[in-house]
């Protein structure tokens, strides 16, 4: 038995260094050589200041911006506290929260479902093209832009399925709103 324990301890010590230290350091080195920006979080800067990450959603709730999805991460889009709501479809809290979101979208027509539901991570950077197009009239009127211009902006920021097949078409809300600010602050 003692022999088994000694073997196990030695084996654990050596493989722990290999798998728990050497391996992640090797990957970090290679990642920073090949994809430095991505390995560091695909950060966006404006005037030298970090204003977010391409991959991490931000809250947008004002009428002049395209809204992002509701978020259950911390107080909303807390990227140090990723989380879904975990509300069941029969939970009254879910039904009430969706109804409240629907009313803030001032909905004359049915709201695309992703715009009133929380994502799994609470950090979803995207909305569906349906949700972006839905918001075009509001954003256009708030910014004093023709609807066609804003619609064109949405279409040019719509990412098709990857390789033409995988995933779903998306619109990155942060990218879209930054482009909107550039077009007409």
């Amino acid at each position: 038995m003692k022999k088994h324990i000694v073997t196990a301890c030695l084996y654990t010590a050596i493989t722990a260094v290999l798998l728990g230290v050497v391996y992640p350091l090797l990957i970090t080195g290679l990642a920073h050589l090949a994809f430095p920006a991505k390995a560091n979080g695909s950060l966006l800067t404006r005037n030298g200041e970090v204003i977010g990450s391409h991959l991490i959603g931000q809250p947008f709730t004002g009428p002049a911006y395209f809204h992002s999805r509701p978020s259950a991460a911390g107080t909303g889009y807390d990227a140090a506290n990723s989380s879904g709501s975990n509300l069941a479809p029969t939970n009254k809290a879910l039904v009430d929260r969706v109804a409240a979101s629907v009313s803030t979208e001032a909905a004359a027509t049915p709201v695309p479902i992703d715009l009133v539901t929380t994502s799994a991570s609470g950090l979803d950077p995207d909305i569906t093209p349906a949700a972006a197009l839905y918001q075009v009239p509001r954003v256009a009127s708030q910014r004093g832009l023709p609807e066609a211009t804003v619609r064109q902006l949405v279409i040019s920021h719509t990412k098709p399925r990857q390789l033409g097949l995988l995933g779903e078409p998306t619109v990155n809300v942060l990218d879209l709103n930054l482009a909107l600010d550039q077009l007409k602050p």
Partner: protein
Amino acid sequence: MSLNGSLQISLFIATILLLAKPMGTYLTHVFEGRKTFLDPVAGPCARLLYRVTRIDPAHEMRWTEYAISMLVFSGVTALLTYGIERLQHFLPLNPQHLANVEPALALNTAISFTTNTNWQSYSPESTMSYLTQMLGLATHNFWSAAVGMALAVAFIRGIARRESKTLGNFWVDLTRGTLWVLLPLSIVFSLALVSQGVVQNFKAYDTATLVEAQKITGADGKPATVTTQTIAQGPVASQEAIKMLGTNGGGFFNANSAHPFENPTPVSNFLQMLSIFLLPAGLAVSLGQMVGSPKHGWAVLAAMVVLWFAGTLTCYWAESQPNPLLHNVDQHVSLTQSGGNMEGKEVRFGIANSALFATVTTDASCGAVNSMHDSFTPLGGMVPMVNILLGEVVFGGVGAGLYGMLVFVIMAVFIAGLMVGRTPEYLGKKIESYDVQMSMLYLLIFPFIILGFAAVTVLMPNLGLSSLANHGPHGLSEILYAYTSATGNNGSAFAGLNANTHWYNYSLTVAMFFGRFMMIIPMLAIAGNLARKKIVPASAGTFPVTTPLFTLLLTGVIVIVGALTFFPALTLGPILEHLLLHAGHTF
């Protein structure tokens, strides 16, 4: 449901079936000690490791020694992780100065990662330091997967060998699984993930200035303004790769593979799903090759694919349905949205990839999630639960799935033998009373733990009911899912349940521990017993294990055992919730 969704699902399974044979052939070469292209690199490393640890690679072990080595190794590695967690505040690579992990949670986590479960009662980005994640947790992702593979190979040897007392050498199998399979695959896969945007760094969390400052109600109830966003970072890609390849599933972040830094694009998502099934599918092919009946491997794989397909179809259909309680929302599939039940799902994955991932991660005992199972429709959420309840044999965990499946194979040939009134045989080995007893023990421990703990939790209101996030039948589903996931060593959750309490931390620890080791011991006993037997020549009365009829019988046995055991519990949880949802009830 859409045409594109069906295409993506078909592409996924087609790719797995294409990869199964090359992967399986490679695994056979590795575990039979034959020549492989990695020998020039891995060979010297292995020899050095054997020399330093004084392992004699030629030493053959009986099933008992194999089991003892495995248990001692698991114990030592669990202690190491427990120690690192308890001391992380004093150790390096903790830029957020996270505190030491408290004992109940540290124990739960150490056992969770040792047993390949990766149940997480905590939120990693606010609990575990970088060092704990890489040295305490990611190492287990390698070890527990390599242990699973070693055990599966030992079982296969039990079937393949004749009149032999031994099953191989645990340390050699462990080393070959790690150095020839898991580590090289992880290196390639983690770089592929970084190319998609998965982060890999050791810096402190970034602070970004929000483009639009937000007015919120603060924790004290007063209005507050949020102007910044703290962005958690870490050595994610290296851990993510082995988390999926080893069917571990423990996320670097709380949101797991839904977090954009863990799974940023549909391509990374596709690769992650492939990497869950890659080794289990390969091992099924290996089984056929190592026992000298390649068709048997494919017949077993076919049963796995049938059960996977049934689960995927059900889940995809259920999640595509609108929630009837929501009004004035557009839940229909169209060219510009995937519609359906989007609560707890990411836009880039939509309905098809969320349902497929949920099915794949619970078929295999992975437990990573790219959507929140707790928010699934009642029937959609029942699919992941049923997948685990079937015993984690539909592909299953790396290694663990295959040996679980082989126990069902023994039951299937036993039942076939009963039907025709002959002593059952499996690949020339007579299946006798001892083998069937051990198989039944294996099959009964599982529901005993799950239903036992769930019943105690439900009956004792002071123990765990205050942890529920959802009430009514869904509350029962949350508890049932927790013990199912722990005992099946899956690790996914109906995550609304707050499991970071003493009751859940300790009881789930027991469930994970027994769900792994109490099932391995009867399994190894069967392997040891089979290895000793003679081969009897096949006769006209032998039930062939290479035909579609065998696949059908095997699938039937799995479904019937699972349904008979768990159907009553499921009627009170997801099935009742489904009926109430459509009757307009809320809780």
